[in-house]
């Protein structure tokens, strides 16, 4: 396992199969509705609401509860960390329930792999932009089933035929008798009714909430008023705060430590060794941090990664000359390259990247007698729960895990090692205290703590014939595997190919007769992780900028070339045409400004972006405007889709312009936002988002906005300056040039 923490691999609950969408994603998506319908019986498995829950209403199934005052509480099996899932899931359920939107609330569902599995994963968890796609059928069915139970309750109460009852905006009516009631008075009776085995779902033409422009997010008022509570804000009585001194190099361990000075810091309660380092437990954050400052730790670095980024990347570059494991081969790419009139070649380098969510990482654990309770912004609940249980020697059913709102994640809270939950449990165990423990990471812990987007080197070659037509394409990718050695390996690594290393390259949509992709998997001793849009973060960049190089060489317009090569891909073509049209592709621009385009599919959503760029301060690109077109199937919450595209663009742009994690002799150079900079408001372009009307089942929007932005900017930059940027971030590429 790549990572500092060696733990027994947590496995999903007995009998379930860990299934992550990968190559068979489309098939899974197509069966989404069937999966949902199949769950009608599954919903019945929900136990009657526990006493505490009953106070807040009657559970009609695992996903909805209705209170006597008519409040509809939707239980979200997915974490909300900004992507809008709470609102999205509630919209879908409330649509089929015919609820009054103003009465809808959302709560995190408890950790429970049986009731609340991600239907694409087989365990509970959020990632791969799957929340809406996997829940679409399930939440519709849950809403429709609850509606049918309310109707049956009303029919029984009013002694009328259920088929004569209508429901709209939270009111149940029987026109014949003139009777009507809100959901509240009917809820208790409805909860006792056997759910129907089958329910009819609405025709999309009947939707009143799905697709509505003015449906507000459920979490916005609290988040605008400082009232939303995150893990950092969470507390329980008698709670201690813990920080951990981590080794300066990945793979190092504690050799010895002197805690005499740390223990003298007022407020410090305990200092304990844990597998991850040395933990200081104190009455509050500041005392814990001061205690850690006062610690003296000797590290055993014999097993540590001591290479720097430069050495790691140099090793990768050497591999670009040797054939790798075959990922895709259409036609005869090598033969066609050998016979080409003109061959283009380019090599790309991508750095380590940290996720740096605004809320640093944390987890609260309370160890009781034969049981435990934990609170965290948990993204892979089943893995976190199983890991805490394994460390504490408990059955997972004895660990109650509460999912809290998280201040961003971008993938960081979804670790196959459950690193934060594991560290919190290890600290609580080592301390042996009955007091609850809140583990918190500082920003320095976060930036230097690993679980990075891995570095990669790509080598691309293209062959043009005498007429300038693209006849051959070969892409070689060199880099580490994110998932090898994790519970996700079986699902995501096939024939030695980690699909997360090549996605976007292996799925290149362009009509090229001779197309090859191969891969060298090169381990590094640094914990690695998916980072918002995963493999697409680098494959979209190399493929989309290389295609522009080809267009320039062939004297073709970049949009024209893509249009010609995408004839068989209507959804790619749809977003390309929409973005190009709305951006006025080809129309005059102010002096010193150029346009660039990129189109990319990720997580079954299609996004094209056209940017306008000039040379800004310090010779860096200044991005003025981004026109973005997205096709994510049925648009559940259009305003949230726009927000996610805006956010993905800003997130991707910040990393492309400024950010890298640089290892120097195995030590991380960056430590906080002064040197891991992030995009700031004055660098944020105007963003205009256009959504393709679609009747396809909904797909994700959390990640797909990210991949096209960096290559679109690079393409505009190349047109503007004649310079192809092949190393990210721009800041480094442009510094090294000058």
């Amino acid at each position, binding site marked *: 396992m790549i990572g500092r923490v060696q733990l027994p691999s947590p496995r999903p609950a007995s009998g379930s199969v860990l299934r992550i969408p990968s190559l068979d994603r489309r098939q899974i998506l197509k069966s989404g509705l069937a999966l949902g319908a199949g769950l009608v019986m599954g919903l019945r498995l929900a136990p009657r609401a526990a006493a505490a829950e009953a106070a807040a209403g009657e559970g009609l199934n695992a996903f909805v509860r209705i209170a006597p005052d008519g409040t509809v509480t939707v239980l979200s099996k997915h974490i909300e960390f900004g992507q809008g899932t709470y609102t999205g899931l509630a919209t879908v359920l409330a649509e089929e329930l015919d609820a009054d939107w103003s009465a809808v609330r959302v709560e995190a569902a408890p950790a429970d792999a049986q009731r609340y599995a991600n239907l694409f994963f087989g365990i509970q968890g959020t990632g791969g932009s799957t929340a809406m796609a996997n829940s679409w059928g399930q939440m519709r069915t849950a809403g429709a089933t609850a509606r049918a139970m309310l109707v049956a309750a009303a029919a029984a109460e009013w002694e009328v035929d259920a088929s004569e009852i209508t429901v709209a905006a939270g009111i149940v009516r029987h026109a014949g008798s003139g009777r009507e009631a809100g959901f509240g008075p009917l809820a208790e009776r409805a909860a006792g009714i056997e759910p129907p085995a089958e329910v009819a779902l609405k025709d999309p033409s009947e939707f009143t909430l799905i697709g509505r422009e003015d449906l507000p997010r459920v979490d916005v008022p609290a988040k605008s008023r400082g009232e939303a509570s995150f893990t950092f804000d969470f507390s329980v009585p008698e709670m201690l705060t813990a920080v951990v001194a981590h080794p300066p190099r990945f793979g190092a361990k504690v050799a010895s430590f002197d805690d005499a000075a740390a223990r003298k810091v*007022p407020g410090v309660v305990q200092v304990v060794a844990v597998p991850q380092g040395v933990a200081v437990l104190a009455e509050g954050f500041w*005392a814990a941090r001061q205690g850690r400052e006062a610690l003296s730790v000797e590290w055993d670095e014999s097993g540590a990664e001591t290479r720097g980024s430069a050495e790691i990347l140099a090793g990768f570059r050497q591999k670009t000359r040797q054939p790798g494991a075959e990922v895709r081969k259409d036609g005869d790419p090598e033969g066609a390259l050998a016979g080409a009139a003109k061959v283009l070649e380019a090599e790309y380098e991508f750095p380590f990247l940290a996720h740096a*969510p605004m809320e640093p990482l944390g987890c609260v654990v309370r160890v009781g007698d034969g049981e435990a309770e934990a609170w965290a912004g948990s993204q892979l609940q089943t893995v976190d729960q199983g890991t805490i249980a394994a460390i504490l020697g408990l059955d997972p059913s004895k660990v109650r895990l509460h999912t809290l709102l998280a201040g961003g994640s971008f993938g960081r809270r979804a670790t196959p090692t459950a690193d934060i939950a594991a560290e919190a449990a290890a600290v609580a165990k080592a301390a042996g205290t009955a007091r609850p423990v809140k583990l918190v990471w500082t920003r320095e812990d976060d930036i230097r703590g690993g679980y990075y987007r891995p570095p990669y080197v790509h080598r691309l070659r293209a062959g043009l014939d005498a007429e300038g037509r693209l006849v051959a394409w070969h892409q070689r990718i060199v880099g580490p595997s994110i998932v090898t050695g994790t519970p996700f390996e079986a699902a995501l690594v096939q024939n030695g190919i980690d699909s997360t290393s090549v996605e976007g390259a292996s799925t290149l949509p362009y009509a090229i007769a001779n197309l090859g992709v191969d891969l060298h998997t090169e381990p590094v001793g640094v914990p690695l992780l998916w980072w918002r849009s995963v493999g697409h973060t680098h494959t979209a960049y190399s493929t989309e900028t290389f295609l522009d190089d080809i267009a320039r060489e062939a004297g073709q317009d970049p949009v024209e070339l893509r249009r010609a090569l995408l004839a068989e891909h209507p959804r790619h073509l749809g977003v390309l045409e929409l973005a190009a049209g709305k951006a006025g592709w080809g129309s005059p621009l102010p002096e010193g400004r150029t346009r660039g385009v990129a189109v990319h599919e990720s997580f079954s959503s299609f996004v094209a972006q056209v940017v306008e760029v000039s040379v800004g301060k310090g010779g860096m690109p200044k991005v003025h405007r981004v026109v973005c077109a997205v096709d994510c199937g049925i648009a559940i919450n259009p305003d949230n889709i726009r927000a996610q595209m805006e956010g993905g663009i*800003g*997130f991707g742009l910040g990393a492309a312009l400024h950010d890298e994690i640089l290892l120097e002799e195995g030590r991380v150079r960056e430590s*906080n936002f002064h040197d891991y900079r992030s995009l*700031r*408001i004055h660098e944020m372009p105007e963003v205009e988002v256009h959504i393709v009307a679609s009747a396809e089942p909904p797909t994700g929007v959390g990640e797909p906005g990210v991949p096209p932005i960096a290559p679109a900017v690079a393409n505009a930059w190349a047109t503007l300056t004649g310079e192809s940027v092949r190393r990210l971030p721009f800041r480094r590429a442009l510094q090294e040039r000058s």
Partner: protein
Amino acid sequence: MKVTIDVNGETRELEAEAGTPLLWVLRESLGLTGTKFGCGVAQCGACTVHLDGRPVRSCVMPVESVGDRRVTTIEGLSGDVADAVRTSWEEIQVPQCGYCQSGQVMTTIALLSRDRSPDDDAIDGALAGNICRCATYPRIRRAVHGAAGRLKGGRG
């Protein structure tokens, strides 16, 4: 040591070690968790509070240096500017994860309290120290303009 500070219009007496940042006194001693920890080094703005109406980074301000200045946190906001900003934030649907938004709102209120018609450059200048990793920046700009419009009586 004993410290006396004025927070949200109330005089609070409390015990704190010298050098403890105001942020942790607010969050842990007074339970005012609306003010967030993001970086600890005055780089991200999540911990922004007002001292006598001016925005400061509470994560690097030792509590004993507050003196008799009035501390206002997001929990203690009132007045027409605060109302306009909160209303505009909801109308434009600014937050995503929401973690930085207290700081964004506090900085915006301080800006609009001294400049009721900021242009984009003024907005960018005032908010350049507030990081949003979700990049809600376009909506923050719109919401600041929206709040400015409300204060002029143009809307709401």
